[in-house]
């Protein structure tokens, strides 16, 4: 059915897709993915697998031979700026995405990455200034013979995986008010799931499900608002084991501030097929000035577990009530089954921007562990784990680092972590072999001064001035750590000069990979953290490392490209238009040269 469907689409028209895509055919997409994700040769989703473990069963490249890795081939995306996420591999085809303008390339792995097709949407460049943090995109999803892309301008588009032809496209929100698409969609069964960015513009967050057959919206669940908007059942939906009750969100906002309350959903999604739950987190409440929005601001900064068919929330947990530091809760939820307290538990492990790592029972939402994964974290002493306490599950905030306490137009100094968190969206990995989580982290602190701001649609709604600096006691701004989620302890930590903004990959070969802002792809021993290999790619790495197998050979691939080609750093000063004679012409010449910007570097072992 799937085969014939793809051919139909390749041949054709939207009409034919509407005619031939019965629910049975669409239903098979998710089931296919469940089978396909088990095949380690492929990477069929941007999270590697539904459980977000970012673990590959490939072991041709292992601790003994990883030192011999060589560049097999490279591919230039032709786009500058930050390249987040990573490519997909489905059979003989690799799908590579880029930052704005959000091009998608299909590359033929049988011919060293020859371009099969390219899709480049025409988007209004006015969307660029409303993207808070670079014009990034975290990847495309595959399902039902289609490639799904959520563009910067919030157009969700389905492309024919074979031809790149647009099968359908739908607008999910309004970039005019600051809503943008940056996250990677996820396909489950017959639906594709997307969220939205825009917390710095007061955009109210949502997660929505669209039918993969025709792009029809099936449900949309907001992070804030009425129970109907939230898709919750006040009696059945729980928070830490108790029903959330009626109007759980409305009660925690002043007036109708929730309408511009943020809680955006630009992170990663994970899915448990047995429990039939989709998991994700919501971001910071808007504005960044906490004084301006009294209350807990529910359900910003929250882990959601929803039924993917209906959208109804089974449980929620708010990690940072009434955020005062921009600690978005969007980071990935890693689903792993581990033994705890003498029995196997279905765990959800989440490394939050707020510097705490949370281990929960993913079936019930019970909080099992909440521990700092960087000793520098100081805004809270701990999370209250006493079930009888009225503050159960809440962080114990330190007054000195509370921007609410210090107040408006006053500078709260030395808060750790900084707004970008102990870890941002760059996903961690989990190895079932070692039972450890491998986490790229920031080791950066901040001064934070909130100020009053008024809301205008489409204008920044930030309300705080920040400065950032390395955590006290050292010069390193990042660490790559191995974390035990059962005990809440760091097993080993590799200091990095700069924050690690690249997603990690764990492999059966006992090797863990990540990238650095200097542009190094690094391979370390999963057991000890010992560096086994490093290679300098053409630019800084904020993409996620992935591995696949083709023609019986294992490859490792990563996108580099933050600020483009490495030499541009020097060239920037060199070509300052105000620098003097010759520089202006030079600037144009250099731009031509550096349009080679983002690069996919693919590694393999030399022929033996």
């Amino acid at each position, binding site marked *: 059915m799937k085969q014939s469907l793809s051919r139909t689409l390749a041949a054709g028209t939207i009409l034919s897709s509407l005619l031939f895509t019965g629910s049975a055919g669409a239903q098979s997409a998710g089931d296919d993915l469940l089978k396909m994700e088990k095949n380690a040769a492929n990477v069929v989703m941007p999270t590697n697998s539904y459980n977000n473990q970012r673990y590959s069963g490939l072991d041709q490249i292992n601790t003994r031979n990883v030192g011999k890795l060589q560049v097999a081939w490279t591919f230039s995306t032709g786009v*500058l*700026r*930050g390249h987040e996420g990573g490519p997909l591999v489905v059979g003989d085809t690799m799908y590579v995405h880029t930052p704005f303008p959000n091009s998608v390339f299909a590359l033929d792995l049988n011919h060293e990455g020859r371009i099969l097709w390219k899709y480049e949407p025409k988007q209004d460049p006015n969307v660029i200034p409303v*993207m*808070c*943090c*670079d*014009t*990034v995109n975290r990847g495309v999803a595959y399902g039902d013979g289609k490639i799904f892309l959520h563009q910067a301008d919030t157009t969700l588009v389905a492309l024919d995986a074979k031809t790149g032809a647009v099968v359908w496209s739908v607008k999910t929100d309004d970039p005019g008010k600051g809503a943008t698409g940056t996250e990677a969609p996820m396909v489950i069964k017959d639906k594709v799931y997307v969220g939205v960015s825009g917390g*710095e513009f007061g955009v109210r967050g949502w997660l929505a499900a669209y039918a993969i057959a025709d792009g029809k919206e099936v449900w949309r669940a907001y992070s804030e608002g009425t129970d109907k908007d939230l898709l919750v059942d006040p009696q059945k939906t729980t928070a830490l084991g108790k029903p959330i009750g009626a109007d759980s969100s409305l009660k925690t906002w002043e007036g109708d501030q929730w309408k511009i309350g943020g809680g955006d959903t630009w992170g990663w999604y994970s899915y448990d097929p047995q429990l039939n739950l989709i998991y994700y987190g919501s971001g910071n409440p808007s504005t960044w000035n906490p004084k301006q929005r009294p209350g807990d601001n529910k359900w910003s900064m929250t882990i959601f577990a929803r039924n993917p068919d209906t959208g109804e929330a089974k449980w929620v947990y708010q990690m940072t009530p009434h955020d005062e530091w921009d600690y978005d809760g969007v980071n990935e939820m890693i689903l792993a089954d581990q033994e705890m307290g003498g029995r196997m538990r279905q765990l959800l492990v989440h490394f939050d921007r707020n510097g705490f790592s949370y281990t929960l029972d993913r079936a019930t939402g019970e909080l099992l562990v909440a521990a700092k994964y960087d000793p520098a974290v100081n805004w809270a002493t701990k999370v209250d784990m006493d079930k009888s306490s009225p503050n159960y599950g809440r962080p114990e905030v330190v007054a000195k680092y509370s921007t609410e306490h210090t107040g408006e137009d006053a500078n709260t100094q030395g808060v750790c972590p*900084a*707004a*970008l968190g102990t870890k941002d969206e760059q996903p961690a990995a989990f190895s079932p072999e070692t039972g450890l989580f491998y986490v790229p982290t920031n080791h*950066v602190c*901040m001064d934070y001064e909130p100020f009053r701001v008024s809301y205008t649609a489409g204008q920044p709604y930030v309300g705080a001035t*920040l*400065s*950032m*600096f*390395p955590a006290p006691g050292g*010069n390193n*701004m990042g660490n790559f750590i191995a974390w035990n989620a059962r005990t809440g302890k760091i097993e080993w930590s590799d200091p990095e*000069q*700069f*924050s690690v903004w690249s997603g990690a990959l764990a492999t059966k070969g006992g090797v863990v990979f990540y990238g650095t*802002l*200097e*542009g190094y792809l690094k391979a370390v021993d999963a057991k000890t953290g010992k560096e086994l290999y490093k290679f*300098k790619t053409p*630019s*800084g790495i904020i993409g996620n490392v992935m591995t696949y197998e083709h023609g019986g050979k294992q490859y490792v691939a990563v996108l580099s490209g*933050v*600020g*483009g*080609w*490495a*030499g*541009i*750093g*020097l*060239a*920037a*000063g*060199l*070509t*300052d238009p*105000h*620098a*003097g*004679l*010759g*520089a202006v012409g*030079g*600037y144009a*010449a*250099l731009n031509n*040269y550096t349009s080679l910007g983002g690069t996919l570097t693919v590694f393999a072992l030399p022929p033996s």
Partner: protein
Amino acid sequence: MRLQTPANRSSPSHVRTAPISVFCDCAGAPLFCQGTGRLPADLFWRIMKMTPIFLRLAIWIAVLGAWPAFAEDQNDYPTAVRAEYVFACMASNGQTQDALRRCACSIDTIASLLPIESYQKAETVLRMRRSAGGYLGEVFRSSLSNTMVRDLQEAEAEAEIRCF
């Protein structure tokens, strides 16, 4: 012909003293390189010719013994790093033989003054300042980041004096 703008502004008195290089300022093959260093290769050979045979052996032993320390002093940058710099420099200063010579001299001077790690740190900071959006770029404007960039700017100022 202009190199790095900030470096142009910094006064030569702030320039750190270069490590003393015995033969010339070119890194990589110090004994054989041509150029305008303090003690060029041809001078070395001239001295060697004037030296009695038994002393020449002693000089060779001394030179080769000092080689590893030398290589370290010279901060041997990968060729790709040097080539990349020359590409950028020529894009700005012209696709000419003259620019090639000056740009090559410039990166060789930088390499003789700055360990590769420091060079890459500064490069990363400059790149991230240019590109990291919004508050993500904030940490690259901290005083630690400024220090990293200053090291490079000082080396570039020295390169400017020697090569341009």
